[in-house]
């Protein structure tokens, strides 16, 4: 039988946990994360805080400018900035 890796190190567990926050983790990765969490207190703590962060940001409903809008804004701003500094 080929060796299937069930055990992952902490840094990988945290990485999967980060991906889970954006729904980017695969099912198999999540299984491995959960096996890791059974015996690792530090990663349990990280996972807890990480999920709280996700929930908090969702609840706050914060907004920001899209990258393209910001670029447009910069262009306009630079025009005025040049006028002012001349």
């Amino acid at each position, binding site marked *: 039988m080929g060796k299937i890796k069930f055990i992952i190190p902490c840094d990988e567990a*945290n*990485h999967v946990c*980060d*991906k889970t*926050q*954006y729904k*980017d983790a695969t099912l198999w990765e999540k299984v491995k994360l959960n096996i890791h969490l059974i015996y690792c207190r530090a990663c349990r703590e*990280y996972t807890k*805080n*990480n999920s*709280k*962060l*996700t929930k*908090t*940001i969702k*609840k*706050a*409903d*914060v*907004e*920001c*400018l*899209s*990258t393209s*809008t*910001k670029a447009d*804004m*910069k262009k*306009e*701003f630079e025009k*005025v*900035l040049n006028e*002012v500094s001349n």
Partner: protein
Amino acid sequence: MPDHKINPNKWIDLYSDYLFNYTITRVNDREIAQDLVQETFFAGLKSMKNFKGEASERTWLISILKRKIIDHYRKINSNKGKAEVRINYNDAESEGDWLEERVSDPFDKTAEDTLQNNELGDAIYNCLGKLPEKQAEVFKMKTILNYETEVICNELNITASNLWVIIHRARTAMADCLKTNWF
């Protein structure tokens, strides 16, 4: 002695999202919010010599923005008629239904919720302001704008593993920063 310096070259990178979020929670319209933020930056440029360095740049810009928001509401209110609430019924059938319509919607956000959300949003932006610029940028693109990993990597010219390292650092710092007051 002035404690704070002014450097408009960095304004958009450092403050535009914060100002935008501040505005949109108060005017509820993306386009108007964008315009108000842009106007704030222009007004800031024009009155740069009045900056005394007593407050931080961000505080100073917010004070300009607040005036812009008030002006905005003043303007729409002076367009008489538009600000009035009108209930017109054209047919006899719906005429009697008005009482039910005035009952408050239980699924609507209460004023208190909105207020708390504003504060929470401000807290999040305060914490974002403490992150290194790059971390804040990547974190916002991934978490608030919900861009795909690929899109961000192309835009910023970084690899996916770079991105996840940055996200990890940003998330750890954000959780730490918000933990004291909000978790």
